[in-house]
């Protein structure tokens, strides 16, 4: 078991003929992900890495039975791509695209839910179930299959944690990047709920950062979880009022500080890592006790 993606994932790549789309399609195919179709309007009949390209998501779904979509479409057109996927019945939509306006993110969030689908991202690195499916841009070679679920708002910091775990011979069940924007399709809490219900996952790593209160909301759920949670929060030294790269990483009006998040997580009995390498040490201890 694992969560969200696995060997039954039938992946559709939206924006497959673009630079990012084609590069990462190759990476995903090489990893062994079951990539069944691509969509680029006007490019039907072409192939990218042996994957057939269609004009519309609906055609691609009808022809291939795709159930998951990944969006590598530039920001001005990405919301439309997400609506198209949701309306064609895709159940999991992963949006990598950065710089999507918040007004569109609000619409994406509500529309996808209304259609009964799930959105991961935007502005996220995607997700990987080691050995089964890599849906996104997380480097495939850093993984190892195992009992730890990872959920994160960041990109390279997630890779850092995954690599540290793998180096310590601790594998991962699924690694999920939920995205660094103020409004994302799936929250920490929802992913934690899935890990709690996943028999393969024995411990969870949460990687948060300054801005908003998604970590505080997650802490409320961690309180009632049976599985140990190790948390790392980036941005203790971030000055208030400045956006630290990610659109959502900003301390405003005294809220969204690293201290507040760490306090909430500690209060929920999560183990707080002070450094990225401590994540692996704490997970090792937590797994031994679990």
């Amino acid at each position, binding site marked *: 078991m694992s969560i969200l993606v696995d060997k039954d994932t039938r992946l559709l790549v939206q924006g497959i003929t673009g630079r990012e789309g084609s590069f990462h399609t190759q990476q995903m195919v090489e990893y062994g992900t079951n990539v069944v179709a691509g969509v680029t309007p006007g490019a039907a009949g072409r192939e990218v890495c042996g994957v057939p390209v269609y004009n519309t998501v609906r055609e691609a779904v009808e022809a291939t039975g795709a159930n998951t979509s990944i969006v590598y479409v530039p920001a001005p057109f990405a919301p439309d791509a997400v609506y198209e996927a949701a309306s064609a019945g895709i159940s999991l939509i992963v949006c990598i695209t950065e710089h999507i306006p918040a007004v569109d993110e*609000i619409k994406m969030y509500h529309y996808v839910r209304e259609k009964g689908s799930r959105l991961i991202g935007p502005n996220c690195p995607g997700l990987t179930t080691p050995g089964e499916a890599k849906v996104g841009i997380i480097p495939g070679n850093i993984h190892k299959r195992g009992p730890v679920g990872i959920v994160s708002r960041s990109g390279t910091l997630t890779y850092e944690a995954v690599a540290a775990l793998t180096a310590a011979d601790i594998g991962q069940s699924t690694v999920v990047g939920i995205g660094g924007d103020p409004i994302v399709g799936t929250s920490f809490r929802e992913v934690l709920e899935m890990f709690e219900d996943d028999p393969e996952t024995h411990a969870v790593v949460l990687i948060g950062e*300054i801005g*908003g209160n998604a970590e505080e909301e997650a802490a409320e759920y961690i309180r009632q979880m049976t599985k140990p949670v190790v948390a790392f929060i980036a941005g203790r030294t971030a000055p208030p009022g400045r956006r630290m790269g990610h659109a959502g990483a900003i301390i405003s*009006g*005294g809220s969204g500080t690293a201290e507040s998040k760490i306090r909430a997580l500690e209060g929920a009995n999560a183990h707080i890592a002070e450094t990225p390498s401590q994540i692996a040490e704490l997970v090792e201890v937590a797994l031994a006790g679990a």
Partner: protein
Amino acid sequence: MNLHEYQSREILAKHGIPVPPGILARSMEEAVEAASSLGYPVVIKAQVHSGGRGKAGGIKLVNSQRELEYVAPTILSMNIGGRPVSALLVVPAADIQKEYYLSVVLDRELKTFTLIASAEGGVDIEEVAREHPDSILRVPAHPWLGLQPYQARELAYKMGFEGSLVRTFVEIAMSLYRCALDVEASLVEINPLAKVSSGDLIALDSKIVVDDNSLFRHPDIAEMRDLSQEETAEVEASRVGISYIKLDGNIGCMVNGAGLAMATMDLVKLYGGNPANFLDIGGGAHADQVEAAMNIILSDEKVSAVLINIFGGITRCDDVARGIVEGLRNIKREVPIVVRLVGTNEEEGHRILEDAGLRSLSSLEEAAKLAVELASKSTVSR
């Protein structure tokens, strides 16, 4: 992106929200002219991207031209919150009977826009929120329907409005919501929304923060950007796709990825150092990007050591190492540099870096410690 008060009130006025008459002045002479056309007494307001303008002395009531000739140049030459005053807004002094707070914010939690109001306006709303959380009223707009008049009406009664002011308030609240959607703001704030002696409600002060990601479809608003309010190095960095924020410390940081960049700064601090900046170099770390990033970091005189932290991922470390070596070739200033590089072909990457005389490590913790140590040595030796 932050807008100045004079820009914000112009946008509010376009949306039918009553604002007082006001004239922008960029010199003492222009301020004198503005004041005489409005009639004394006037209020002179510093236009600067910073809160606490009043406390800093950037807002002054002026009764005569003589007074203005003294006050205007003083305020124009001020720095508030580390930023230079860009211009003055001259408005007639208002006879305020009561002050309210009204804003529309992007609500991260509810995934919509939410109207926030308080009958305790005119002061720092964050302080009100801390001390009297019950006096802050929140009304989320339905994501499809939008804010409805009944919601604004309920709010008006809760805030104690009576008679024709209920309708006036509802109109202002609805307009403010439409304004937030139109300009794609993350915040549109009126503080205070003042009841003046004529009985009217007017937006005495306002602030708009627009969503940077939406600027591509709002060229008119993009043009309102005031570069004088931003660090030159930060503007330069954003031009080449590098995200840079200057801080107070002496250890320059160059990292790929925003989360990892923050974590790197935190580590520097944890080991007793002080980060000089946040810098996300973006993907790849090619020679030209490394060179640009290094120049940006070293434009800060205080930097006495640089920590480069690259997580290779899909990019191969030997390519990254070559990029770093080449990118550093043209850098004239000599500071100790520590490179931490991990990923595919790591050993080869380290060999290339060491051949070029760079200290290279695999452990982030050790690299951060070393950077802190080298920075303190190099500061002492100066």
